[in-house]
């Protein structure tokens, strides 16, 4: 029921095209888009290109989470790290990451490597800042409690500081997840030989607009689905919050 407006939009889309209110050259009908999508699915184009995108996005995001989390914790815990890396993080954070597309291609070529590097670079800082802010807001009394219960200083990092940072880390990862889709599709659109972004560009240039729209819809749905899945997961992981 919540998604009723979406259903209405789909009906309106189909109607305006069927009634000739909008030219089919600008907007193919939804039913044509669905048919073209079905063909792509049956002939395997979706799967090969989808797999390439999934691999790049997954690797880039995982690397960004791993390195970003370690960096954020280190910045929060050691003053020296904060002083040396902090200004760099702050300066780079607002930079439009898509500007790095030519740079990563120059370094790693047209294949998976350049996409993974781009996503890694673009998604790391939101994770870093999330962990950093979360760890900084960790209650002193929690750290002291753990210390007086026999935990070493380093152990406290794992037992107390990291879990304290978890809610903020989760927010950082959510931002990174959305960014992954943006960077993945735009980099594949510009320079790639496979991937869903590449497929959109390829079909568009060839004038196969119904199929192009099908891939655009799939990418939009994947982004939405990934976010919902992630939120479900976090709801479970962070169940201890009120």
């Amino acid at each position, binding site marked *: 029921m919540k998604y009723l407006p979406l259903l209405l939009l789909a009906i309106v889309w189909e109607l305006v095209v069927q009634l000739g209110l909008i030219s089919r050259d600008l907007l193919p009908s939804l039913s044509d888009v669905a048919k073209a999508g079905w063909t792509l699915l049956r002939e395997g184009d979706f799967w090969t290109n989808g797999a390439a995108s999934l691999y790049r996005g997954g690797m880039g995001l995982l690397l960004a989470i791993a390195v970003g989390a370690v960096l954020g914790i280190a910045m929060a815990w050691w003053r020296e790290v904060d002083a040396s890396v902090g200004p760099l993080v702050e300066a780079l954070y607002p930079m439009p990451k898509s500007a790095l597309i030519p740079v990563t291609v120059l370094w790693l070529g047209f294949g998976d490597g350049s996409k993974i590097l781009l996503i890694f670079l673009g998604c790391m800082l939101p994770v870093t800042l999330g962990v950093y802010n979360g760890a900084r807001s960790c209650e002193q009394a929690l750290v002291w409690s753990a210390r007086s219960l026999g935990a070493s200083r380093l152990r406290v990092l794992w037992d107390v500081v990291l879990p304290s940072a978890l809610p903020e880390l989760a927010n950082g990862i959510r931002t990174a997840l959305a960014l992954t889709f943006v960077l993945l599709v735009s980099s594949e659109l510009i320079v790639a030989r496979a991937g869903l972004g590449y497929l959109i560009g390829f079909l568009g240039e060839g004038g196969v607009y119904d199929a192009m729209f099908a891939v655009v819809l799939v990418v939009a749905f994947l982004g939405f689905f990934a976010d919902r899945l992630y939120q479900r997961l976090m709801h479970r992981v962070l169940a*201890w919050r009120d």
Partner: protein
Amino acid sequence: MVDSTADSVKQIAVERVSHVYRPPRGREVLALEEVSLEIGVREFVALLGPSGCGKSTLLYLIGGFLPIEKGAIRIEGAPVAGPGPDRGIVFQHFALFPWRTVKANVRYGLEKLGLARAEQERRAQHFIEMVGLKGFEESYPSQLSGGMKQRAALARTLAVDPKMLLMDEPFGALDAQTRSLMQSELYAIWERTPKTVIFVTHDVQEAVRLAQRVVVMSARPGKIKASVKVELDRNDPHIYRSPAFAEKVDEIWSLVRDEAIKAQ
């Protein structure tokens, strides 16, 4: 002649300790000035004073949480070098790990001791039942009331069997009824398993209700103003209405009043 009563054996010795508090912004404050204090084995001492008198700072120094800059603090003769499980701490705002259940919170210190899992479980359960939290083992702190949170925190601290109990206004965040109940229970626990207790509070009645000795501190800079022995029958359910209690409260209140006015 060797005096061998428990009270006379020194456990904590604070010697001419001064401490400067440096806020991230703003002026430095002399929080403690030349504080000396001795506390005996299994003695129950209340540190009483207006807010800002440095009583919590003194507690944190004994706990090893803050560096000792001037003077010395010795625990059984050895200088304090950081926190340790010989000194358990209980905070005003409970400081439970919110991502751990009650049981897992109580188990935390037992994990650090390296006990076998079965023994951890057994001891955690014992202390949870002792503080009256049976049935709430699997609850998260966010699901508990303030009083229950403090019971859980107390169980977590007691489970590792510290020789000394440092309590930082532990009942200050509780409503009056819960506070009174917790006072009785704390006293009962202390009677059964005597430990050295340092109990920081700004509540004169609470100090007199619980402590064998009330140490009154003066406002900025924090100094020890007086040390008053309190001998009352704590198991008297009507202790609050006894004349001896009222007399002690009056005596100590007169010592605190000037400081409280100064602190405003």
